[in-house]
């Protein structure tokens, strides 16, 4: 199994000492994110998030299938993530690493279990037909903080996504193409966002956000909060690592809330921009014979 090379001892001491003096290698403040870029594809449901050198792409697709027999009134919603050798040679196909397991669990808890998507609205005919919404998350390049960027990408992609409109008359289910009826957005209940705090220092007293790969290798612990803008915690995970003071955790929660509001505003703004770009006067514009000159 190819292993990721570890930072050398001198690299380690240099970086850690700099952090303990409040300096980061890329001259960010300790609580500052790297510039975050969110863009949408031409298709509905494609979101591309760039956070420094980390880049993730989420693609949403939907198809009509038979619901699970134990949940006839619910649609199917799944998130799959893949960390392949494209990211780093230490990731192998079909052999989930710890990072991958934790990422998948985190997205599952943050988005699926918290009920961000109303799965009941995906049901078409109880027990027979439902929508199966699937998010494919591709990590294109990893330079730390995969969790926060992945979560943002998935949420943005799902909110951007439009599924074909349907109607039921008696026993017949009709699915309309985009030309027949405008596709409809998913029934979205709330937007949770992850913020990861990484702890440094002998006592875990220094807190960093949005760590790069190098910083991530040197951290002594981390905690990830998922909150929506209403201040609801969807998930917290501090999976072991160096024990930190409980008061620090509470402080982090408050910071995560502020961050989550920021993310919400960002996604809202980008979605509005994208909607504006797409909407050039609706159907009338499409039907118009006038040429752009």
């Amino acid at each position: 199994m190819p292993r990721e090379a570890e930072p050398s001892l001198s690299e380690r001491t240099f970086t850690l000492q700099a952090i303990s003096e409040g300096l980061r290698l890329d001259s960010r403040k300790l609580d500052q994110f790297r510039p975050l870029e969110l863009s949408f594809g031409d298709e509905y449901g494609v979101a591309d998030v760039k956070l420094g050198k980390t880049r993730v792409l989420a693609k949403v697709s939907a198809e009509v299938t038979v619901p699970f027999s134990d949940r006839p009134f619910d649609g199917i919603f799944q998130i799959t993530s893949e960390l392949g050798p494209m990211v780093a040679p230490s990731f192998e196909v079909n052999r989930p690493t710890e990072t991958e397991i934790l990422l998948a669990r985190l997205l599952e808890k943050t988005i699926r279990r918290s009920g961000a998507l109303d799965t009941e609205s995906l049901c078409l005919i109880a027990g027979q037909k439902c929508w199966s919404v699937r998010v494919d998350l591709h990590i294109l390049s990893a330079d730390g903080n995969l969790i926060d960027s992945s979560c943002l990408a998935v949420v943005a992609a799902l909110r951007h996504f439009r599924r074909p409109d349907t109607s039921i008359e008696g026993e017949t289910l009709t699915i309309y193409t985009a030309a027949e009826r405008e596709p409809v957005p998913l029934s979205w209940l709330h937007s949770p966002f992850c913020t990861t705090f990484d702890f440094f220092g002998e006592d875990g007293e220094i807190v960093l956000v949005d760590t790069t790969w190098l910083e991530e290798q040197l951290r002594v612990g981390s905690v990830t909060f998922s909150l929506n803008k209403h201040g609801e915690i969807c998930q917290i995970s501090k999976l072991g690592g160096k024990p930190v003071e409980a008061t620090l955790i509470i402080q982090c929660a408050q910071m995560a809330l502020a961050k989550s509001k920021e993310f919400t505003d960002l996604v809202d703004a980008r979605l509005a921009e994208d909607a504006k770009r797409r909407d050039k006067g609706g159907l009338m514009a499409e039907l118009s014979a006038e040429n752009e000159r």
Partner: protein
Amino acid sequence: MPLDTSTYSLALLRIDGRRWNDLRRLHAQIHTQDAADGSSYLEMGHTKVMCVVTGPAEPQAGQKKGTVGSAQATGQKEGASIVVNVVVAGFSSVDRKRRGRNDRRIQEMEITIQKALAANLHTHLFPHSTITVSLHVLSQDGSLLAALINATTLAVIDAGIPMTDYITACTAGSTSSYAAGDDAADPLLDLNTQEEQELPYLTVGTLGDSDKVAVLVCESRVQVSRLEGMLVVGVDGCKQVRRLLDGIVKQKGRKMIKEGAVRRSDMMAVSLDD
């Protein structure tokens, strides 16, 4: 089965008759397995787990490569690596369900325990070796991760592996229904399955008698303002658990001294400060 939370506000008693800050019966034994280096059996109410620790020992042939289905510490060249395996027995819960080795939920618990141990144990004393922790879940009734962490701590102490302090864990919940902003919500300590299904809760694991949080896992929706209250109750519960576990270890130690298996202390610890 929905839990009728409305009765709580009347009598301030929970479904099993406990008050908000009561732990369930915690029963534990250490050194239950003769063949193991360290072992323990722990019951928190009806949640029953067993733990067996092997090592520090030479890594087994298969363990050097990342074995699928077990959490493993990598990049710890200078110290012992820790491997944690959790096996959930098919008969442990009401619905008999076979959980594969690749269940993500279980893998996450393995990783959590492994990382918590890695930060607590003095692994640098045992280079080039492996500490294997296997946990068996015999019965589930809430607070599973907490029970696993507590059992692991006991077994590791039994194995005589040096550590910074006990890591003890318990769950804390809140009576508020999720997302509702009612201020009258009470925090609850040590939830059982019924309460876990109905109420928001978190699992908190702390180091020794301090307020330092080693593990914090929350999987339910809850107002951020509730967090502090739940955390305080949880941390307090962990201290109670630590006292109980400490009592069990000391009791075992006294018994061993009485049997003559261990020599007594050369002197009193208290006299050292003079």
